[in-house]
């Protein structure tokens, strides 16, 4: 079987971190997601944005990993946002109610502008 890898990189913007994800999110992603989230957290951002635009597959274990990240973010008062999800995964975020706790945007610009807008308020 092909080994499906997830890649993640951090972009440090003023007071926020964007985690660019690439690949597939399933059981094999656990270690990397834990690591990258804790790296992001160490920078003390007020918001972390997950970029899913290069993610082709998320399974139920992947959903559980995102739930874990969201739980950590809520514990430390960090806002967790997401963008770049396909309509299918938006549907899954809706039925799992993840979208009730994590704002979803179509793209980076809309996510950033929403944060900006919030900050301006």
């Amino acid at each position, binding site marked *: *079987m092909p080994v499906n890898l997830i890649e993640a990189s951090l972009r440090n913007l003023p007071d926020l971190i964007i985690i660019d994800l690439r690949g597939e999110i399933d059981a094999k992603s656990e270690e990397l997601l834990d690591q990258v989230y804790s790296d992001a957290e160490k920078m003390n951002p007020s918001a972390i944005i997950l970029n899913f635009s290069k993610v082709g597959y998320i399974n*139920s274990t992947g959903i559980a990993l995102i739930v874990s990240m969201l739980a950590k973010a809520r514990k430390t008062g960090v806002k967790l946002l997401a963008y770049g999800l396909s309509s*299918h995964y938006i549907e899954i975020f809706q039925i799992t109610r993840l979208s009730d706790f994590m704002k979803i945007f179509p793209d980076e610009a809309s996510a950033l502008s929403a944060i900006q807008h919030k900050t301006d308020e």
Partner: protein
Amino acid sequence: MKDLQKDFWLTIVRQVPETNQDQLSPEITESGMGTPWQIDPDDPIIGYFQEFPEAVEIEELNLNSTALDQLSEFGVKLVVPLINQGKLVGLLNLDEQSGEENYIRNDRRLLGNLANQAEAMLKIAQWVRSRQLEISEREDLEHDRRIANVIQETLIPREVPFLPGWQAKTYWQPAKEVSGDFYDFFNLANGRLGLVIGDVTDKGLPTTLVMATTRSILRDEMIRKASPGQVLSKVNNLLCSDIPHNMFVTCLCAILDPNTGNLSYANAGHNLPICQRMQGIEELRATGMPLGLFPEMVYEEGATTLEPGDKLLLFSDGLVEAHNKDREMFGFGRLRELVEDCIGCEGLEDILLSKFDEFTGEMWEQEDDVIIVSLQREQLSRASDGASSIQSSQEGSWIVLGEFSLPSEAGVERLASEKVLQVMKNLPLNKAQKDRLTTAVAEATMNAIEHGNQFDPKKPVIIKVTASDSAVSVHITDQGGSLIVPGSKEPDLEAKLAGLESPRGWGLFIIRKMVDHFEIISSEFHHTIILTMFLGGEADAR
């Protein structure tokens, strides 16, 4: 041990000078020392020498003996009998003394002494020779036995067919001497299963070769012919022209439609299959001559339906004809009684085998192969979303688009989705529906691998795609019927976010939300998740 007198007469002749060779019979010339020359066991010369064990000139003998005539023809003058334990074991034959007329008394005494020495040695030589022949005969038999064994072992299927909703079991205990027993399964068109069990008369290598031939012809004809009677009729005609005249084959041939439980069968003189049902047992009768005896035979066909819980039992002679130490036979009556007593209990085969072992006892000398083949339609329990089962409510109108099996390895779930999409590529499903099915199939396959099959690569996940005019269904079956299906209660996200519940446990919940109808069928041996999506359904928004 064999009677040496009968088989190993030795004649010891004087070395013949080359010039004289043509005066002697070729047998004697070629025989030389130690080559057997047979004397008829009824020849009076044997009785004579056993009564008078002394050297004698053959001219002095007046016997109506062929051996004596032959000796005389060979030019033998004096014969010294070699007697061991009162039995004639050989003759020391001498022709004319060179230069002298007759053997004198001294010569005879000397020869008598020589004979005394030779007798025991000859007896030993004969014994060694007989052992050598026995060993070589045994080695030939052992060689044949090994070949026959390899053929039979290669042809007897090691794996039982996998049919969702059915449980097949086989048991084969070969006898020491290779027999002509066989059974086989064939996957036929439209998901049907062909099933044969048979026995070639006799034992050993020729029998095994006839068995192999019969099995090949059966395999070929099962694929071509529509009914078991037609199959047996054709196989009989083909075998009649090829089979050795003293051999024939008994064979039961059946075809099962696993979707309906309909079973058609024909029987060429094999043991009657027993059908075990909740209400009693039934022997499935259909008449027909064994294969290979007479051409152009017609085979009666029978038909029945195996309902959920029913079991079909096929078996070999070796089971019913086994004898215990009191020479009592296991018998059909005992078998029928046992099968009847086991109605409603699990593990008929194990019970049967343990009773059989008890009957035959520890020192049992197994004469024939013991074969048991059983096929049970599973009792089903259903858990589904909605009032009734989609599949059963539209039984008959579904067609199978594809069926495949995958090993229980992590990551295979993606392949499952891809294959399912490929199979249903011509169906009117929109992109959202395809995406949902992709996710649902992958999740259900992952469940089957993880929970049902416990990542055991030997346990396959079987996936079948069926379609009707209005819907498509994906059946995903694992091999873990005894395991409990994890509950599919709605996950509590707040509790998960608060760390009060594991972040996991989304699989079944997501699957249910992805499809229009969801059903789990559990049996003793499998779980099947059936995912159904209505065709030409709603637009992408859900």
